[in-house]
């Protein structure tokens, strides 16, 4: 298992380098201009100067190389400096965002908490809801509960968040006035009141996101449970005189969780990737909003860095999912 992990990690390096190159070239090819949001009143010569000041005058390969150095060499130093108070990175140029002229990583670090809070909670909520639904639907296959579950999850799956998001805002903020329609990212949770406030502002985005994730996860859980409910060992467990609860919730569930856990693990990068539309609808201003904003403003270093971090997470969690599989299922041995 260890060698498997190490081997895959080593393999990941060229993969990621290649991915970063592809992303870079893609962004390079994409039309758009960092000056797009500068008002039309600013004349083109000035824009051209501003472009040069951003380093756009240099050839492509040099910029790619610079980015590589900044991302893989300087940023880790900055990280070390921040943790240990050293000064390795002093004076080195970090990956700088074109929109804000500040280090990209700083903004990412600033954004991450919101995203993790909202998308992460949604993910957890979805898991907490989806698993029981999936389990029960499978256990009572074709019952009305199961049919309802199918129906609701399909609807949940097919309703785009720009609709469901606005819908809950209209209902809960505008009509009922229960929750704020705009997420306050400056809120510091340090007391019961602020905690309640935080909960209130998280309810709606979490609800919208969780609906979609629940829809998919519960389908998965159901299928996996169905696979296992008909296995011979379930009969063995019953023949031992175990209660239905233990049979289903211990024996069957433990086996059914194996594929589901890997699916969950595979979905984790998307937590960090944020939820572009939902974040936008609720003004959560997390990573997803950062990315879409950066794409719209053609802030290439930002887009490149964010997508690349995302790629790293995807590759990493692919690996984690495989390893988890090996851990959860004693039959699987990676040599």
């Amino acid at each position, binding site marked *: 298992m260890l060698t498997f992990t190490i081997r895959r990690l080593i393999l990941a390096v060229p993969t990621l380098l290649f991915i970063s190159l592809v992303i870079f070239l893609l962004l390079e090819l994409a039309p758009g201009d960092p000056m797009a949001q500068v008002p039309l009143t600013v004349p083109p010569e000035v824009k051209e100067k501003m472009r040069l000041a951003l380093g756009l005058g240099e050839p492509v390969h040099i910029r790619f190389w610079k980015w590589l150095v900044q991302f893989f060499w300087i940023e880790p130093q900055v990280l070390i400096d921040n943790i240990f108070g050293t000064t390795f990175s002093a004076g080195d140029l970090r990956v700088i965002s074109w929109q804000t002229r500040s280090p990209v990583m700083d903004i990412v670090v600033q954004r991450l908490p919101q995203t993790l809070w909202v998308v992460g909670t949604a993910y957890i909520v979805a898991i907490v809801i989806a698993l029981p639904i999936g389990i029960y639907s499978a256990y009572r296959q074709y019952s009305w509960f199961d049919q309802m579950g199918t129906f609701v999850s399909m609807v949940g799956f097919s309703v785009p968040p720009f609709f469901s998001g606005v819908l809950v805002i209209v209902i809960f903020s505008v009509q009922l006035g229960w929750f704020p329609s705009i997420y306050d990212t400056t809120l510091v949770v340090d007391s019961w009141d602020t905690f309640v406030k935080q909960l209130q502002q998280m309810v709606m985005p979490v609800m919208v996101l969780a609906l979609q994730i629940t829809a998919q996860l519960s389908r998965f859980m159901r299928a996996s449970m169905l696979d296992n409910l008909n296995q011979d060992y379930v009969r063995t467990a019953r023949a031992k*005189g*175990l209660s*239905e609860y233990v049979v289903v919730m211990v024996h069957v569930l433990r086996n059914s969780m*194996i594929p589901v856990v890997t699916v969950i693990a595979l979905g984790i990068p998307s937590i960090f990737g944020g939820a572009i539309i939902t974040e936008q609808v609720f003004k959560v201003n997390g990573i997803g909003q950062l990315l879409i904003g950066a794409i719209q403003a053609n802030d290439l270093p930002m887009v490149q860095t964010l997508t690349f971090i995302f790629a790293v997470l995807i590759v990493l969690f692919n690996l984690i999912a495989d390893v988890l599989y090996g851990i959860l299922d004693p039959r699987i041995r990676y040599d």
Partner: protein
Amino acid sequence: MLDQPIAQIKGLRVEFQTKDGPVVGVQDVSFDVNPGETVCIVGESGSGKSVSSLSLMRLVEFGGGEITSGQLVFDRREGGQVDLGDTDQALMKQIRGNEIGMIFQEPMTALNPVFTVGRQLTEGLRIHKNMNKAQAEARAIELLREVRIPEPERRMKQYPHELSGGMRQRVVIAMAMACEPRLLIADEPTTALDVTIQAEILALMDRLKRETGTAVMFITHDMAVVAQMADRVVVMFRGNKVEEGTVHEIFENPQHDYTKALLAAVPKLGEMSGKNYPEPMKLMGAEDQKIEPIKGSDEVILNVENLVTRFPVKGGLLRRTVANVHAVEDVSFKVFKGQTLSLVGESGCGKSSAGRSILRLVEPQSGKVEFEGRDILGLNQNELHKARQDMQMIFQDPFASLNPQMQLMDQVAEPMRNYGLASGSELQDRVANLFDRVHLPRSFMRRYPHEMSGGQRQRIAIARALALNPKLIVADEAVSALDVSVQAQVLNLMMELQAELGLSFLFISHDMAVVERVSHQVGVMYLGRIVEIGPRARVFENPQHAYTQALMKAVPIADPNQRKSEKDLNFKPIPSPIHDLNYSPEPSQYMEVAPGHFVLTTDSGY
């Protein structure tokens, strides 16, 4: 109290609700199980054996079945008799595992793969006997010892897949015995196991029964096992009980036609002694059967010399080969035209690998395979493609070896399509002829594999193998998965084809009785090597190698008078065939003890 039966099944009827309306699983089945007695229930697949036993546990309900009438009276340890048919599930929970234990057919799947053996063993104990963890573990270890599992402490922490099939089945037995039930139901506990392991398990159950006085309800379709185990026998046929009697009555004086047919279909070890050539079995219901020995010829069709097949074991960061599985090690034999060479041996000894190596379905390491004078190992892909036309294979599992998504006609036609032998209506005709050949109605051509019984399926596999008019067929456990009656038909079919078409067979099996019936030559394999090879009569009547002798001893005989006891058995676990890269095995050397009868003189590992 003593002569009162532990379980009485009266007029049991079980129905299953399916899409096409209710299906009757068993109808009006009645029999008793007395204390300390082993009742064997026999019958072909689908005859309702499992359904009866599951009803007794009230587990049919979880499979969609329903007990629509009848009583299942069970004599509880305390509290007298109850009708299990209408107890609630809460009470059933206390009875299951505690007063009735059950052993299931498939040791590979009957255990939960993700829990340790210890956990699964102690579960029942902790519920029914209110033991704490330590007590339960102590008892579990004791149980493992009772079922003769070596190193029980270590096994407790292992997962099922880390144990061999035999050990797993013992764990299942230990689990069923854990709470000392009054009734033990064993649903085909040995069907999936090797002869040697089967013999051990049967002996073990017999001993446990005698030691604890538990009543046993033993379900099987193997008459030899019945002869070995039963006190009383219940014969079932298509959901009904057709006959009941003591084991001697049944074997010596069967009343019902079905029972008679069943007994006729069982190949008995020793039946062929004195005959030099194999001949088809005499079956009930097939009147105009001609039983003639199949002689074959002396012409060598396949010559295998020093065949070595190894599978690499990869590891390390670079996934280099770190060791090899020595699946086939220096094996030589000859197959004669129109004759059958059988390879026998325990699971994992390399029989299949040898068979596949000959067709180059796995690539052998070295050696020589000469088929009709052509060196098979030297062919390139195109030539090999052509050569395979003359060599075909039939696989063990008739369920797995047919594509579930293809109509039978297409599956049989596929080889001819591949070689462009026929097309259009000619192809249709040839397929139809093949169906005739294997005695399947032509109307089956449009069916799918799942619509066929196992035997019929295996005939399709045979038809497919025959489609190219091969000269040699490698039959890898071609009948192992079949019911006795079906097995007999398939065996007869194979022999018929051999007689008519002059086919040669390389017959791979672990069933000594079957091998005795069909072979001209027999090779006994152990750990990748042939330890003994020679004409069938000699090898069976005069086994020379220690392993062959042990193997012969293990085979149960379908005769209640020839029971075996545990102490006759003497098997060592097979050593690992995995060796590291610089291991070089010594070449096999044989001694010719009689003309054509060779025995391995070098160390075989046994």
